[in-house]
C-alpha cells in the first residue's frame, strides 16, 4: 500500500512516499517561488528512489491550504490530476490539521503564519476542527495572543499524519480544491 503525500502550501515542498503507513521516502525542499518548477521533479525523484512506478500508488494525500495561494494551487492541481488519472482515492487535509495531529492536546488553537497575518483553527482532542478557519491580520493577532493559548510552532510528525489518515474521508478528485480562507479584494 503506497500513499503519496504532497504539501506545497508554504515556501517548502514536502513530498513523502508512505509504504504501509510508514514513511519510506521523504523529500523536503526549500523552494521559495519555484514550486512550479520543483514539485513534479521531486515527486519523480521520490518514485525513482523507491523504485516504484507511478501506477503502484494507491492513495494521494494533499495539504490543500490555507497558505500561499499559488503554492496550494500547484499541489492541489497535481494531486487531483494524479488521483483522477490513476483512479485512486484522494484525501485533502489542512495545513493546520497537520500541526494539530502532530502532538497530543486538549482543545487547542493552531496558528499557521503567512506574510501579513495568520490562519487560525480550533481543534478538539480528537483533532476535529471546531467551527471554521479564520484569517487574522498580524495587527489583530498581536492584540489577542497575550490573552489566549495559541500554538504556532509545532514540529510536524509525518508518522502521526498517516496513522490518523483513516479518520479522513476520501473525496471525488473533481471536488478537491484549495482552502483559501483569506478573502481577496473582489470577495469583500
Amino acid at each position, binding site marked *: 500500500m503506497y500513499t503519496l503525500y504532497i504539501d506545497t502550501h508554504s515556501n517548502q515542498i514536502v513530498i513523502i512516499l508512505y509504504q504501509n503507513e510508514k514513511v519510506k521516502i521523504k523529500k523536503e525542499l526549500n523552494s521559495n517561488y519555484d514550486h512550479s518548477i520543483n514539485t513534479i521533479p521531486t515527486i519523480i525523484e521520490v518514485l525513482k528512489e523507491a523504485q516504484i512506478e507511478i501506477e503502484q500508488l494507491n492513495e494521494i494525500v494533499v495539504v490543500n491550504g490555507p497558505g500561499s495561494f499559488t503554492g496550494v494551487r500547484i499541489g492541489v492541481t497535481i494531486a487531483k*490530476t494524479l488521483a483522477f488519472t490513476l483512479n485512486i482515492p484522494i484525501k485533502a487535509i489542512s495545513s493546520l490539521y497537520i500541526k494539530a495531529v502532530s502532538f497530543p492536546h486538549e482543545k487547542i488553537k493552531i496558528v499557521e503564519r503567512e506574510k501579513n497575518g495568520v490562519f487560525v483553527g480550533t481543534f478538539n482532542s480528537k483533532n476535529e476542527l471546531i467551527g471554521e478557519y479564520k484569517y487574522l491580520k498580524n495587527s489583530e493577532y498581536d492584540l489577542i495572543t497575550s490573552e489566549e493559548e495559541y500554538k504556532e510552532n509545532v514540529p510536524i510528525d509525518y508518522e502521526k499524519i498517516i496513522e490518523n489518515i483513516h479518520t479522513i474521508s476520501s473525496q471525488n478528485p473533481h471536488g478537491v480544491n484549495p482552502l483559501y480562507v483569506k478573502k481577496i479584494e473582489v470577495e469583500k
Partner: protein
Amino acid sequence: MKDVYIFAIESSCDETSMAIVKNGKEIESFTVLTQMDTHAKFGGVVPEVASRMHTENITMVFQETIAKSSISMDRIDAIAVTYAPGLLGSLLVGVEFAKTLALVYKKPLIAVNHMIGHIYANRIDNDLKFPLLALVVSGGHTDLIKMNKDYDFQILGSTLDDAIGEAFDKVARILGLQYPGGPNVERLALQGQPTYDLPKPLNDSSYNFSFSGLKSSIINLVHNEQQRHHEIRKSDLACSFQTAAVDQLKRKVKLALKNGEYQELILAGGVSASRYLRHEMEEIAINHHIPLSVPDFKYCTDNAAMIGAAAYPLFLNHQFADFNLNAQSNLPITSK
C-alpha cells in the same frame, strides 16, 4: 507516415480549454470552458479568480475532452501546453496539469507560446503558404510578422503602446459598455457612421502601430462634448473609433504587401474574430491577389486546438520540454 495525436491544454487567461489534435490540423476533440460571465461581474478578468476557476475545473474539462473522443490517452503521442505569455497563476495550473499527465501517461511534453498558437490556428483544417504575412491582433498584441517557414518569425512591426484589443476595451469603458469590450464596441459600431474626426496615428513608412493617441482623443472628445452639454452619439463614436483603428492596420498591411513577396495573408489573435476587420482584410487580399486565411470563429479566441496545431512542428523536431518547465507571463514570439 504514422498519424500523430497531440493532447493540448490552454489556460493562459479565462478559458480552460483542451483538445486532441491529429497531425497538427484535424480536431478530434475540443472543449472550451469560459469564465467570461464570472469576470463580467468585475468588469474585467480578475487574475486570482481566473486561477481558482482553472484549478476547480481542470479535471472535469479533461474528463469531458477524453469522453468526446474515441482516441484514448494510450494513443496520444505528446502533451502540449501553453506556458507563456499570459496570466502567471492561470498558466501555472495548465502547466502543472500537463506535467502530471505527461508523468502518468509517460508522454513527451511540449511547451507552446500562446501567440504562436494564435498564428497556427490558421493551420487547423488548412495549410500555411509560405512566405506569409501574419497580422496578430489581440488584447496584448498587435504585430505584423513575416514567416518564411514553420517557426520562423520576423517581426516587421509592433504596437508602440496599447494593443488593439486593449484599446477596444478601454474605449468600451469610456462608452459605458460592458466587458468584454471589443465585441460590444463592434456591435454598437454596426448601428453608426464614422462621423467623428479622429487622428491618423503613425501615418509613416514603418510597420509599427499606435493606439493610445486614438484612445486619448476619444477621452478628450467625450469630455469636451459633456462640458458643452452635447449628446454623444455613441454608435457613431464606436464606428469612428473602429474605422480609425482598423484603418491603421490596413495601411500597414498594404505597405508590407507592397514591399514584400507573400503567398498568403493571415489573421490571428482574439481580435481576428471581428467581422469588420475580416471584411476589410478580405478586400486587401483580393486587391493583392493573395489568399486570406482567417481562423474559424471558435479558434480565434483562446483555445487548446490552436495549441495542438502549434505543437505539431515542435513534435516533428523533437523539441520537448523537461519536467522543470515553468510558466512565464511575458515571452516574445521570437524567443527560442
